[in-house]
């Protein structure tokens, strides 16, 4: 029963996919492991993968990643987590993905403005464990997308997972 509870929580975390750029990865470790870090015991960047293991982090942890990718794509993350009193942990993380300038076109294929795109994800996570080893975590995501520089078209979304 306890294992089933843990699996259900894990599935909920995995299924929260707010955007394609969020799926790419958030650190060299996650990219190299294809983001298969739900059960990772390496205490870093848990808020992206599974906040229910935050209780296992030790002291304070910092993480910083920067990716420069082909086709003018880039991705940056910052991560902080710390152990809380009792069997609990908390973390905050920011992920930014962007894609470089490209030419906009009107309905007649005439060039218009240079376009670019940036997505920002903010995560605040909390996890607590029990004496028997199981854990529960909650993560709140805020997504801001600056889709069109000159039109300042933007979107906000909040995703809460348990």
């Amino acid at each position, binding site marked *: 029963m306890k294992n089933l509870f843990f699996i259900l929580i894990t599935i909920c975390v995995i299924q929260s996919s707010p*955007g*394609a*750029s969020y*799926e*790419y990865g958030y650190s060299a470790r996650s990219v190299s492991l294809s983001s298969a870090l739900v059960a990772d015991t390496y205490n870093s960047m848990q808020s992206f993968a599974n906040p229910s293991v935050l209780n296992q982090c030790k002291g304070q942890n910092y993480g910083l990643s920067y990716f420069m990718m082909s*086709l*003018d*794509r880039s991705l940056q993350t910052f991560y902080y987590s710390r152990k809380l009193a009792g069997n609990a942990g908390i973390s905050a993380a920011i992920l930014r*993905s962007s*894609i470089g300038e*490209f*030419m*906009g*076109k*009107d*309905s*007649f*294929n*005439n*060039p218009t403005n240079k*376009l670019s*795109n940036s*997505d920002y994800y903010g995560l605040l996570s909390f996890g607590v464990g029990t004496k028997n080893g199981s854990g529960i975590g909650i993560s709140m995501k805020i997504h801001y*997308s600056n*889709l*069109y520089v000159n039109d300042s*078209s933007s*979107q906000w979304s909040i995703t809460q997972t348990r």
Partner: protein
Amino acid sequence: MEDRWIIGIRSQEKSDFDRLWTISWNPALNKAVPHTLNYTDDNGLSWSFTRFFETIGAIVYDLNFHNDNVYASTDKGLYYSDGNNLNLWIPYEVNDISQTKMTDVVYSSNINVIDNQQILSAGTPDGLFYSFDDGFTWEMYRAWNRTQDSENDNKRLSAYPNPFYVDEGYGQVRIVYFNSSNDNGKLDIYDFSMNHIKTLKQPNNIGNESEFVWDGKDKFSDDVSNGVYLCRLSLGNKYYWTKLMVIHS
């Protein structure tokens, strides 16, 4: 006519009498739909109406007449009535030769008869469509500018309109490239994380250019999310890339 606003007036010369049409809108609804067609055969002493377009929730942009026939241009397509039963309107499908649907939105229409050949024309956001067989097959006139030489190597691959507002206009984006030899290319569309979205094959060849038309749906026919998509043209042994921003209103 109740409290409706009259947003269009058209006169129809029927074979035996004249009919005056109005396109009316109820401002209390605070939105552009639905529209009602009202008509009078006695110079406004009495009015009748058809609520057909209210029923289908269509915005009627214009009316056109040919003899007793009535053509209504709407955001849900071009509709035809024989003028006798005004509750029965038959939709035209604006399809190309392969019966692929080209557009829903029709702003205006016209009937011309040249050398005993009847030509039905429809003005759309994508260009001027015309049909010689009473709307069964359509051809079109469309204007666009060639991509600048400096863009994307000598293939000048580009997507327009960009950004692509999926819910506005004709809901299609065109990915064009220079293709003097009319080689068959293939276009693959990826999202930021390089997840494969869709493959487009068999482009339309127009002169020295070829184009793919994409409706903003993935390979499962679901709408794609907002964001920038990466389009890869495979031509021969070479790849060419361009970026396309997709926005849902």
